[in-house]
């Protein structure tokens, strides 16, 4: 199963959000049988890229599992909704970059799992240039 086995879409096809705004969307697992799916984890998180080691923080996290009695029907899209925080804003720096994404992990029988993620921008901070 590949990364593309998880489809994530934001409502309104929005990719740039303002702090305090509500991010909503859905995820799907096309071609997956309900019997195979054991659990789904959805995270709204930021992480850093660039020269430094990665920093990461999860803003919101949900876990739905068949074991816990959650209804897992891969034929139906799952929905997520979260109010975005004031910071950190998305940032495209020279050696530090801050990225936001929704990450969905699906756990299947026989210890198989797939992960998909969809990026979005929080805030409109322009890319940094090296100072003269």
């Amino acid at each position, binding site marked *: 199963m590949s990364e593309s086995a998880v489809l994530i879409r934001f409502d309104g096809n929005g990719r740039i*959000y*303002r*702090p305090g705004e509500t991010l909503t969307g859905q995820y799907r697992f096309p071609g997956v049988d309900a019997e195979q799916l054991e659990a789904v984890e959805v995270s709204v998180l930021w992480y*850093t890229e*660039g*020269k*430094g*080691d*990665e*920093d990461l*923080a999860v803003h919101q996290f949900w876990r739905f599992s068949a074991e816990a009695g959650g209804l897992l029907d891969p034929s139906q899209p799952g929905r997520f909704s979260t109010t975005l925080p*004031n*910071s*950190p*804003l998305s*940032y495209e*720096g*020279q*050696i*530090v970059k*801050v990225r936001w994404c929704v990450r969905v992990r699906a756990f299947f029988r026989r210890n198989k799992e797939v992960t998909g993620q969809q990026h979005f921008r*929080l*805030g*409109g*901070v*322009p890319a*940094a*240039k*090296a*100072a*003269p």
Partner: protein
Amino acid sequence: MWFAVHGYLEGRPDWLLTVFVIPFLAVGIGLIVLFIRQLLLTAAIGPTRVEISDHPLTPGERYHLFLSQAGRLKFNVLEAALVCEEQATYRQGTNTRTETRQVYRQELLREEGFEIQPTVPFEKQCEFTVPSGAMHSFHAQHNQIQWRLVVHGRLAGWPDYQRAFPVIVRPGNGKGRHE
């Protein structure tokens, strides 16, 4: 070194030992000179005082800055700037390295060719605006974005000095661009 000097005093100089000792002597004297110079510089440059009209700073907002520099010095240039630096820490083998990159610099004030006396500190005021699209201060374990007010002095006959005052820039409303 004692043996080398003793050899000269007794009229039996050891040239091999002398050649060996000279680099260490030069480095030692150099360090002492640097130390004394730094000590004099620190004593000569009095306290640098920076005051801003509000804190934390907000992108797009305008602020007053007051700079006071005491001491007994002759300046070629004294300047104050608002700078933003990215700092990334990473592991390379068993070492931990930190790299810093300046991504924004706004000169706030600059004064050339003047002298300050111990009794009358240099004082100057100005206004500045934090760019409306500025990235806010950010502090994670390995990655940071730091804003600082930096005072840089170029002195006549002395090495340059720099003093930095960290400031916090809070997140803006998420829109706008660097000016």
